[in-house]
């Protein structure tokens, strides 16, 4: 393998990992507040279709990305209203949101299949992009990838070093105790859900506006589910979410690169590796109950009823 090839692999790794990273960061914040939203796939698809249509009609990528995020937020609010106001089961509601988003995006987008747009171009930073190996990886990407670096830093700081982050975690660990000392449980959870929706919308928009600038039904092809698994895989830690997303990106790129180089490894085997790793980690985590209690937000998936 020469230097160019390694440079290209690392570049593609970040690019492939970016949509996963963005969704997973949103879901991380959401789950930290004790809410499990399985509707990522549906919210991503809505973001993808709205972002694409807006950009196609208006010609503005910025507007496309913004409205993709708005679409994600609106979808997440449906989830929020049903699980918070009506105290519905979060798992069932999340699944319903995915099915709803898949169908609705297909319906809205049916007239926009087969229409191309000019996608987001990479931005090169003179001097830095030409660095060997890491140049293109960190400085030859498009704006959303750079944004994902910033988002990671912001989420990391927010969860680990900020007071609102502490409130978020308190609400996720024990909403009743948080409520008792006067923390706004509902507001915190709503904001967390909306952040998750915005990130899913952004990631969906990234797929339809930058990664593959086109709209096709179900174009997310399961990335929302992978992101959900990543959050568990990362045991609810932002830095591990970053690592996991990029590792997943690397795994999915390598299995294509190796085939091109003529290695005779079964692509089926390589294709299941990321999923296999996720399952193994899940089994290990759940085998030790106290361990899994330590990492998962204590009241994840439980509805909160305000008493009194």
């Amino acid at each position: 393998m020469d230097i160019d090839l390694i440079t290209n692999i690392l570049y593609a790794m970040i690019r492939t990992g970016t949509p996963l990273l963005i969704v997973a960061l949103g879901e991380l914040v959401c789950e930290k507040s004790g809410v499990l939203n399985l509707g990522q796939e549906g919210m991503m698809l809505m973001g993808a279709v709205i972002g694409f249509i807006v950009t196609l009609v208006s010609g503005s990528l910025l507007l496309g990305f913004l409205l993709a995020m708005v679409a994600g937020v609106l979808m997440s609010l449906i989830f929020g209203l049903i699980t918070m106001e009506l105290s519905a089961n979060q798992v069932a509601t999340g699944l319903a949101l995915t099915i709803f988003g898949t169908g609705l995006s297909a319906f809205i987008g049916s007239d926009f299949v087969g229409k191309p747009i000019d996608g987001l171009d990479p931005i090169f930073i003179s001097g830095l992009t030409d660095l060997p190996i890491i140049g293109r990886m960190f400085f030859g990407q498009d704006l959303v990838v750079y944004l994902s670096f910033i988002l990671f830093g912001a989420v990391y700081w927010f969860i680990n070093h900020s007071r609102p982050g502490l409130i978020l975690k308190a609400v996720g660990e024990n909403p009743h105790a948080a409520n008792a000392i006067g923390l706004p449980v509902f507001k915190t959870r709503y904001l967390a859900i909306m952040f998750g929706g915005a990130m899913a919308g952004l990631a969906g928009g990234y797929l339809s506006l930058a990664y593959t600038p086109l709209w096709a039904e179900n174009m997310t092809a399961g990335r929302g589910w992978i992101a959900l698994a990543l959050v568990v895989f990362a045991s609810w830690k932002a830095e591990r979410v970053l690592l996991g997303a990029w590792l997943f990106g690397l795994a999915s790129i390598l299995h294509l690169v190796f085939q091109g180089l003529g290695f005779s490894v079964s692509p089926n085997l390589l294709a299941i590796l990321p999923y296999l790793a996720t399952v193994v980690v899940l089994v290990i985590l759940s085998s030790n109950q106290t361990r899994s209690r330590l990492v998962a937000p204590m009241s994840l998936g439980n509805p909160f009823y305000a008493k009194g």
Partner: protein
Amino acid sequence: MKRRQFNKLVTGLAAGVCLTALSSLSVQAADPLKVGFVYVGPIGDHGWSYQHDQGRKSVEAEFGDKVKTTYVENVAEGADAQRVIYNLAKTGHKLIFTTSFGFMNPTLKVAKQFPDVVFEHATGYKMAKNVGTYISTTFEGRYVAGYVASQVTKSNKIGYIASFPIPEVIRDINAVQLALNKYNPEAELKVIWVNSWFDPGKEADAANAMMDQGVDVILQHTDSPAAMQAADRRGKYAVGQASDMSSFGPNAHLLSVVDEWGPHYINTVNSVMNGTWKPKANVEGMKEGAIVIPSFNDSIPADVVSHAKELIAGIKDGSVYPFAGPIKNKAGELVVPEGSSLSYEDLEKMNWYVEGIQSDIPK
């Protein structure tokens, strides 16, 4: 009830039934033929199901109000398919097309219950009194694409994004390699399996991975135009699959191998209307207008385009056949001797690579 009254009633009823029967007969003559279509994917995939739906639309355009078409999309292969097909038959559809391999057994089961309904199943091999099959020979188009690729490549590296290692896909890869063997033996075919019919992101990743390794022409047996876009961005060439993908890469688009189901659907509707329909295995290709190459990129040298057109003409008149011997397998053993060729039945079971392909078929 008195006997006379009863007789009256019976007569009245009988007359009523006769009248109804008569009127329904006369109405039937003017009634449109109801035609049902069952799709495995969404019609918005811009690929397989999309092209079938284009075929349905051409039936509507051809027959106007003499037909009434219905389609059901996103039908899972298996028990759900049987329910969908049953419902179509039950609601008066007299001709039903089921357009995916996995609909084969459900189609046959429902066909048994509705002997007066005509069924046609795409890409399968089982038939019945009222069930025919149809499939198109995409390898003809791929052979022409392989020839054009062999002439325009500068790096002598050609990429192929493949979905699943089933005979249909292996057959088409072989058709491309046979074209390379004949027209540019120096060219190398790199095959990447993505284990999906439709994942735009992954198809683009595969295209980029190949271009990183020096590939400058990309062919695909997956359904999204993502690879076409990726090639266009990097100034390379690509060949479209199933539908015309020229709008996704005006510079990259060498040609598209398009499935035109319309002619077959129109013929079938005609024969059902005339009462001449008979169950048979329809294998249709360029000759029947089922496989079409609508356009060639302006940047392809004129002599290459004209030779490609000669190939198409040859395939149509039968003088060119991609799988005519001599053909050697990957190990160099002569499998098809000079003078004989692989039949369509052989191709349906193809599970080996021809000489020249470096990688192995995944197990």
